[in-house]
């Protein structure tokens, strides 16, 4: 009592407390960083071990397996997967979400220490990497140049990459697509042989000549001087005059046997942006830094940077992940504003008075802003989840204020003064307001306790809605009565306009009340019909329509990005790859006017480029990065375009495989939806065959637009098979011979050419035209210690072979994964069902097992978590209601609204063809807490009527008639609050659309059923109770009589 009394009695204090909350909220809003999702800490650790010279199979047996066996004992480990390829073993440890990765890293390090001694001597010490979503580049910039192309790498490195790397939060800035400067010394093997020279000899001469040597200091008279030899090359041409040998007493100059060009490295990735060749700058952020903030700073810096660059260099944006984040948040902000306006309108229509509407609607901004304070204090961001929480809450926060305001109005209408009415009316309803808030909080608070991926996503949602509802309840019992006492008047005067608008509304609502009362009367007379009808409806929908319900994990988010990887047959020449890439580029640009930027890179990255060598690259690989215009500006969705692109790619016969990834990533939250069929088995050949068979069958399945097999094909290569005996006879060994080959083909880095503080490789090798055929290799001359030249063909054979692919393992078994991408017109459950059938049809060799993985596994885990949570929530809600009514029967009756919410959800999802994913399931969880509120209101009032002396039937009908309006009003504000979410078409809206739809459909359907079914079930229970009471009384009376 004291709380509302002091609130009403001290309007200034009350007002200012809430003003303070609002101001703090606004402050938080201005300070909150923006991000796409709540921060997801990395849950993977990579262990990389190199073992030079070992084949994939050797690596697997000697490095990967011992490491896997010991690492398997690390706690909280979910999966161990590994890939063993030539020279290197990479083991990825996937942990449960939400664990402390630093602790896990230490654990891994300890385990590694135990096993290192058991590894082969040649193997390097395993290196540990942590990686997560932060490693995904946040910005890709394109660079185009004309005249400056030659020195572009240096210009970009000095003027763009270095300043950008200084931006706070930027991790690495890497340049690709621009070959680095290199001095090439191209030798003619025929001339070398004629003069008896070797590549090695020339390299030595160059290294010996290209020197600056300090020679000490010496004194002349009273002065001391230092002495230097300064003979480093100042121009590449200088080298031509080097004496590299002598023939017949005359010096042989380098120009006699070689050409020297100051040019670029031979093999490099080429990058085309919008069909123009150029470079690409990739910006990655530091772990934990805010993408939007970094992108903003980078964008601010770019014009300044561009000013310092030669005028022909243009920098453009290929991908800016922050665009999508900002657009998503903008579209959510818009949704929230619409929701706010719509809820306000509903409240106004029902209340019919501006002042009352103002009082009620004021609770919305105050409670929402209070949640923003929480976000800032807890170090969170404005993201999809936190913004959705705001949107969800809008429709719910007004409910309490409405109940309070209604009761105050009633008191005023009875003749109380507003001030007194405010206090006493609030006192009357406070308990039921708190109880109905508790049932909703019972849903959201447990959300903060779940673990795993769902836990990370829904923790914020849980806290925010809990806080919002708590603040709204506090506001409803303090601020609302205070404002009512100040603003509400008992005035019968209403304007003409008001009468014109509201008389029909009033009439309609009254008619609705009467109709509903009649319906209840009829229902009471035909209780059996009503109950049977409800049961039939429930079973019919769940058994019948429920089968048509499709499931998924998260919907693919339309972030306007598509990435495509195209593989030609392994070993295809770069020129052919480039030509195909350009043709694909042209086809895509012609077919998709939605494309904003199209960028591709092809070719082998230099081994020095650490970043590029981590990614898959090769002369036969093309990777496209495509940015589309925002989803609001186009008709075709991301997945539709993706599917059409696949059809286009099918038309290129030279493509071996391709992978179109919508959204730029596969799996996870908002990525492409993929069904992985994991085939486990040791024998490479039989699992290969099975995978190929499965893939062929799956590609026939409708709705499955792309099938990829994880194990790559055997790549062709040439091997020089030296004959050891011949080598020995010539006084050679394998390493000497091999180094001769390497120096001629790959080249020998003789020395470094220095200019302006930078070093460039001076590479000595055969001129290009002397290393273009098998014969050229065979004709390479190798010199032994005696100086005899022997041809490679005399020492061994050059043979064509195939290198076995990378061996992948998961949970300590060899694995091959067939990934089936779910098309735009199918759901994950469709593909799963088909995949299940396919796996039944195919013959599975002995020793081979299979299971579903990928998105399906994540879905199963999250669904299991959420179902457990649902059971918990149902129990909590029951406990709260039982406590409120001090009864077991009434909560039980009210609980019947939950299955009908499910019926509404099934109908809504099936009708709109929306699959049920995590977000829809979250909607169902919320429904559990929301739908019971209507039942609580009805049952509470019916109880009250009976306590006032009415019979069961009369009480049911009276309560129904009297409570219809508040029930409809609170339901409508919630349902209508969800509709903007459900029908939003903005960027990122896929994420919350199914949740909005679920709550809107479930709540409306459940309310319609609840309005009839709950009173009828109540009357059945109550009649039964009355009869039992009567019988007891009769028995007691008889007993008394007999005594």
């Amino acid at each position, binding site marked *: 009592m004291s709380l509302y009394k002091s609130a009403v009695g001290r309007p200034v204090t009350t007002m200012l407390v809430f003003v303070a909350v609002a101001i703090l909220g606004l402050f938080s809003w201005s300070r909150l960083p923006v991000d796409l999702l709540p921060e997801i800490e990395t849950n993977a650790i990579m262990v990389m071990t190199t073992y030079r010279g070992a084949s994939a199979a050797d690596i697997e047996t000697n490095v990967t397996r011992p490491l896997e066996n010991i690492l398997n004992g690390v706690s909280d480990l979910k999966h161990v997967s590994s890939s063993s390829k030539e020279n290197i073993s990479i083991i990825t440890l996937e942990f449960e979400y939400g664990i402390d990765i630093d602790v896990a890293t230490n654990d891994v390090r300890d385990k590694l220490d135990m096993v290192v001694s058991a590894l082969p001597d040649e193997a390097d010490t395993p290196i540990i990497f942590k990686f997560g979503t932060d490693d995904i580049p946040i910005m890709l910039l394109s660079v185009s140049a004309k005249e400056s192309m030659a020195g572009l790498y240096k210009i970009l490195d000095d003027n763009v990459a270095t300043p950008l790397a200084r931006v706070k939060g930027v991790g690495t800035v890497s340049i690709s697509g621009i070959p680095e400067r290199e001095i090439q010394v191209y030798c003619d093997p025929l001339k070398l042989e004629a003069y008896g020279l070797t590549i090695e000899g020339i390299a030595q001469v160059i290294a010996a000549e290209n020197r600056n040597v300090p020679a000490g200091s010496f004194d002349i008279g009273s002065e001391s001087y230092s002495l230097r030899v300064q003979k480093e090359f100042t121009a590449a041409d200088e080298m031509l005059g080097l004496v590299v040998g002598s023939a017949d007493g005359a010096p042989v100059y380098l120009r006699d046997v070689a050409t020297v060009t100051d040019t670029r490295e031979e093999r490099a990735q080429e990058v085309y942006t919008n069909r123009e060749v150029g470079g690409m700058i990739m910006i990655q952020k530091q772990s934990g830094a805010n993408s939007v903030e970094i992108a903003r700073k980078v964008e601010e810096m770019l014009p300044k940077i561009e000013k310092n660059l030669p005028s022909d260099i243009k920098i453009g944006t290929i991908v800016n992940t922050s665009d999508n984040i900002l657009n998503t948040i903008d579209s959510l902000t818009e949704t929230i504003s619409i929701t706010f306006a719509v809820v306000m309108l509903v409240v106004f229509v029902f209340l019919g008075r501006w002042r009352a509407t103002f009082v009620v609607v004021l609770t919305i901004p105050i409670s929402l802003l209070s949640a923003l304070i929480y976000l800032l204090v807890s170090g969170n961001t404005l993201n999809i989840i936190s913004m959705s929480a705001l949107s969800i809450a809008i429709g719910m926060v007004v409910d309490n204020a409405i109940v309070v305001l209604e009761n105050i109005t009633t008191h005023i209408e*009875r*003749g*109380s*003064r507003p001030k*007194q*009415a405010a206090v006493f009316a609030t006192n*009357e309803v406070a308990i039921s307001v708190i109880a109905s808030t508790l049932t909703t909080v019972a849903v959201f608070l447990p959300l903060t306790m779940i673990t795993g991926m769902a836990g990370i996503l829904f923790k914020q949602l849980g806290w925010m809605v809990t806080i919002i509802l708590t603040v709204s309840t506090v506001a409803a019992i303090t601020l609302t009565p205070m404002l009512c006492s100040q603003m509400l008047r008992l005035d019968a005067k209403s304007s003409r306009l008001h009468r014109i608008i509201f008389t029909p509304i009033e009439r309609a609502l009254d008619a609705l009340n009467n109709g509903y009362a009649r319906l209840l009367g009829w229902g009471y007379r035909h209780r059996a019909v009503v109950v049977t009808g409800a049961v039939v409806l429930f079973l019919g929908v769940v058994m019948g329509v429920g089968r048509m319900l499709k499931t998924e994990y998260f919907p693919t988010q339309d972030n306007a990005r598509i990435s495509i990887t195209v593989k030609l047959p392994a070993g295809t020449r770069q020129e052919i790859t480039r030509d195909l890439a350009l043709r694909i580029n042209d086809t895509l640009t012609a077919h998709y006017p939605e494309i904003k930027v199209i960028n591709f890179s092809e070719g082998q990255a230099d081994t020095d480029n650490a970043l590029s060598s981590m990614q898959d690259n090769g002369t036969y690989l093309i990777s496209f990065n495509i940015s589309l215009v925002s989803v609001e500006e186009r008709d075709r969705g991301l997945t539709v375009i993706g599917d059409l692109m696949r059809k286009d790619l099918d038309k290129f016969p030279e493509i071996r495989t391709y992978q179109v990834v919508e959204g730029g990533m596969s799996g996870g939250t908002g990525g492409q939806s993929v069904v992985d069929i994991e085939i486990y088995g040791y024998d490479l050949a039989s699992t290969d065959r099975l995978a190929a068979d499965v893939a062929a069958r799956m590609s026939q399945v409708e709705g499955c637009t792309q099938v990829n097999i994880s194990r790559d094909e055997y790549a062709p290569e040439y091997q020089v098979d030296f004959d050891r005996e011949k080598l020995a006879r010539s006084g050679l060994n394998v390493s000497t011979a091999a180094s001769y080959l390497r120096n001629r083909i790959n080249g020998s880095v003789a020395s470094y050419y220095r200019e302006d503080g930078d070093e460039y490789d001076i590479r000595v090798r055969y001129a290009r035209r002397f290393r273009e055929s098998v014969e050229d290799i065979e004709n390479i001359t190798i010199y032994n210690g005696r100086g005899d030249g022997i041809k490679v063909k005399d020492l061994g054979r050059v043979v064509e072979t195939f290198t076995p692919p990378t061996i992948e393992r998961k949970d300590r078994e060899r694995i091959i994964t067939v990934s089936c991408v779910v098309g735009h017109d199918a759901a994950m459950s469709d593909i799963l069902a088909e995949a299940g059938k396919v796996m039944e049809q195919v013959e599975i060799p002995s020793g081979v097992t299979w299971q579903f993985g990928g998105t399906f596994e994540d879905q199963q885990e999250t669904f299991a978590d959420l179902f457990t949570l649902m059971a918990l929530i149902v129990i909590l809600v029951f406990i709260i209601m039982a406590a409120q009514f001090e009864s077991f029967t009434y909560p039980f009756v009210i609980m019947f609204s939950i299955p009908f919410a499910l019926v509404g959800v099934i109908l809504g999802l099936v009708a709109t063809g929306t699959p049920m994913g995590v977000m829809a399931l979250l909607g169902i969880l919320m429904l559990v807490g929301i739908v019971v509120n209507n039942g609580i209101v009805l049952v509470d009032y019916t109880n*009250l009527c009976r306590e006032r002396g009415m019979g069961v039937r009369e009480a049911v009908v009276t309560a129904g008639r009297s409570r219809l309006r508040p029930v409809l009003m609170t339901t409508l504000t919630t349902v209508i609050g969800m509709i903007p979410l459900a029908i939003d078409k903005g960027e990122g809206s896929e994420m919350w659309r199914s949740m909005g739809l679920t709550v809107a459909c479930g709540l409306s359907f459940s309310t319609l059923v609840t309005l009839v079914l709950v009173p009828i079930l109540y009357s059945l229970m109550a009649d039964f109770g009355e009869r039992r009471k009567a019988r007891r009384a009769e028995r007691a009376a008889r007993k008394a009589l007999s005594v």
Partner: protein
Amino acid sequence: MKAIFISFNQALYDQIIDLMDELGIRGFTCWETVTGRGSSTGEPHYGTHAWPTLNSAILTFVDETVAPLFLDRLKQMDEASQMQGLKAFCWGGVTDPF
């Protein structure tokens, strides 16, 4: 002096105090929360789930000349808002002990 006992819906408290001030009635005793129900019509005031409203009661001793006016005004107040519930009882011949 006349004794006047008023039992009324809590919400009318301010109005009654205002009225007493207007009529120059200074002394009174008030029980802030009492329960009860009217003799013939009106809702009970029990402060329970079914009947959540509560009454207050005021006992005041007024001058014989003021009493009729006071009772009259109270009656008017009751009639203005029948739903609230207000009842006044009056008995005479009370002597002032001081």
